[in-house]
């Protein structure tokens, strides 16, 4: 509750008992940590750091605590302990960021009778955040044999405006605006709305996600900020390229170029992030004797990453970038300057059926030609098609009946997983080769080259193994049963 509510609560007697408020003199620093997407809040957990102690309020209401290592931002860096153990479900890639921080003090609220005997008490914690409103946390504690007093106190806290301690309630009390971010917005699409509106709403929903991730990229909080930033841009670009004829052809072309220009400077950093995140698996692929070469390679990558990160951060801070992203945001939120194309007034349902059906047919045609001898390039092409189909289906999911739609999407995801593994092997071989070719007179050049050589060999073997699986997976995805399902859901009614 608020400080004012606490003062009101202690203003008068509670069922004949006198409330006594007592604050400690000591003040501590506190921080409330959560992921950027507030996974802790969403799973009804709350993580405090008070001086050097970490406290986790679990979904079940238990309080776990352990020592907090200074400057640890990732759960994986935590010292072993009950808090770390209770957070293993969280992504190891995301950093914990501060939702609120400031000073706090502890206190006690005691209810005493006319002989000075305590009947109930409550532990108090006043949080005074640097920005946002001060909040008092109250933990009522009963004394054995005084159940009535505890009930009275709890009821009194409720009627005075106290709410149960959840991260959601607390975040909102400190700052109402801090609970709004979602990485995957659900854009409500109605069957009869126009394709123009659907495309515009989608882009308008993804642009804020681009914007909101800039801060984390600039301050290098974790690698997921850039990842989400790129996904949001990629989705926007897919809308532009997949929703053919929704906007004027020239304008579509212009927009594609502009969004592509935003994406380009993010590539090198993301590539390095991917390698560095995969470090461990690379080490496990090659024999121990090759590890020193990998050490040198990753150390080189880390230093390149530092440069790339600085470069991207500088770019995101330029007025040129800011102006451009603001202009694009305005374009899609105001809509006035968007020029409709030939398909703009079609209903989104019809449009979706046609796009998805065509894309699926195309995949089936290509899949029919796949065999063990198919060049990598063709498999890559199929992967791109599948990705496009996936985006289309995800964009339009609100206009289709959920159950059959989700099951088709699931089969598609399975196929993509297989393709993804294959493609990673191919791309990594190419990139690693390029990395070697790029090495000028770096130290350890020979060692790095040897290690990469053996990595490429292993990756090639993996690639060959994946290829067989892909042929099977495509077989399933273009089976006549699957074709029937796709036809039922996406083939226009008049053809039946």
């Amino acid at each position, binding site marked *: 509750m608020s400080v004012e509510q606490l003062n009101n609560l202690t203003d008068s007697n509670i069922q004949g008992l006198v409330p006594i408020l007592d604050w400690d003199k000591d003040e501590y620093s506190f921080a409330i940590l959560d992921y950027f997407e507030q996974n802790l809040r969403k799973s009804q957990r709350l993580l405090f750091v008070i001086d050097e102690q970490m406290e986790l309020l679990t979904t079940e209401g238990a309080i776990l605590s352990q020592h907090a290592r200074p400057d640890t931002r990732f759960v994986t860096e935590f010292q072993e302990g009950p808090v770390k153990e209770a957070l293993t479900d969280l992504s190891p890639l995301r950093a914990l960021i501060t939702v609120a921080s400031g000073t706090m003090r502890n206190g006690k609220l005691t209810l005493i*009778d006319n*002989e*000075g*005997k*305590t009947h109930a008490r409550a532990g108090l914690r006043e949080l005074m955040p640097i920005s946002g409103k001060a909040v008092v946390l109250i933990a009522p504690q*009963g*004394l*054995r*044999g*005084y159940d009535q007093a505890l009930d009275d106190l709890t009821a009194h806290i409720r009627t005075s405006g106290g709410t149960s301690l959840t991260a959601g309630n607390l975040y909102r009390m400190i700052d109402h605006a801090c609970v709004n971010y979602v990485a995957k917005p659900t854009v409500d699409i109605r069957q009869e709305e126009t394709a123009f509106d659907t495309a515009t709403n989608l882009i308008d929903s993804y642009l804020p996600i681009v914007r909101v991730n800039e801060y984390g990229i600039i301050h290098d909080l974790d690698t997921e900020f850039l990842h989400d930033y790129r996904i949001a841009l990629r989705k926007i670009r897919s809308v532009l390229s997949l929703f053919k004829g929704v906007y004027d052809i020239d304008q579509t072309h212009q927009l594609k170029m502009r969004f592509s220009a935003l994406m380009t400077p993010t590539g090198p950093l993301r590539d390095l992030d991917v390698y560095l995140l995969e470090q461990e698996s690379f080490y496990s692929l090659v024999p121990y004797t090759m590890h020193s070469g990998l050490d040198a390679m990753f150390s080189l990558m880390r230093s390149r990453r530092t440069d790339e990160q600085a470069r991207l951060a500088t770019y995101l801070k330029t007025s040129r970038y800011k102006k451009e992203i603001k202009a694009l945001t305005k374009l899609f939120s105001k809509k006035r300057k968007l020029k409709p194309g030939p398909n703009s007034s079609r209903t989104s349902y019809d449009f979706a059926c046609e796009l998805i059906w065509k894309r699926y047919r195309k995949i089936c045609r290509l899949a029919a030609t796949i065999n063990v001898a198919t060049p990598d390039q063709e498999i890559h092409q199929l992967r791109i098609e599948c990705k496009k189909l996936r985006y289309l289906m995800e964009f339009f999911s609100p206009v289709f009946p959920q159950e059959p739609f989700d099951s088709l999407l699931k089969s598609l995801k399975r196929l993509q997983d297989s393709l993804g593994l294959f493609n990673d092997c191919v791309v990594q071989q190419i990139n690693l080769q390029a990395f070697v070719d790029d090495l000028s007179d770096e130290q350890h050049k020979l060692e790095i080259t040897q290690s990469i050589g053996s990595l490429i060999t292993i990756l090639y073997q993996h690639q060959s193994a994946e290829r067989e699986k892909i042929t099977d997976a495509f077989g399933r995805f273009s089976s006549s049963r699957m074709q029937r399902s796709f036809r039922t859901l996406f083939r226009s009614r008049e053809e039946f």
Partner: protein
Amino acid sequence: MQIIACYSNKGGVGKTATAVNLAYAFATSGRRTLLCDLDPQGASGFYFRVKPSKKLTEARFFEDVEHFTKSIRGSDYDNLDILPANMSFRDFDVFLSKMKDARSRLKKALKAVKSDYDIVLLDCPPNISILSENVFRAADAVVTPVIPTTLSQRTFEQLLEFFREHDLLMEKIHAFFSMVQGTKSLHGEMIVELTHNYPKRIMAAKIPFASEIERMGMLRAPVLATAPNSPAGKAYQALFDELLERIAP
């Protein structure tokens, strides 16, 4: 769970003050402690500001587990609960004497709270009776304050005699000198004599005759809570430390 009785067959020897301070010391050492006030005058409860229990009559104490546990009250200190006394406890003995297997009734009653507490301290009324015998049988230790005077020596020896006659374990008795006045030569002589006669039964810690202990009635809190660094506070701490050593399993 260990049961410790604070007992003296003579009144006014600082028994309740001992029970209150020992209970507090056990609780602050992290042990979950229950102080049972078996003295109908209800002084232990008074020191902790707990009002006497109206509902807990003798029948309920020994028969009705639910009422017994419901009458327990949390003190203002962590880990320390109180079972307040009631004037009807004065008829305990009459009641117990009518009951079958009277001598182990207390132990059975205390079993109800076995898992809630590490230590149960019994503040006993000053007489030798069926209740006392119950206390001696139930307790793991009987802590006995002795004022170093001739009269106290007599009652202490009566207690030892009672233990012998009833075949009770003498090792349970942990006596100590209470209300000791350093200026009185008689006190000094009695201490030497009794310690010499009963070296195993008498502890080294001595509680002085001190104003802090008398003030407990006014402050209504243990000396160890209000004046831990006073001579009396230090003496109670020393008594606790020594007792802990002697009863450690």
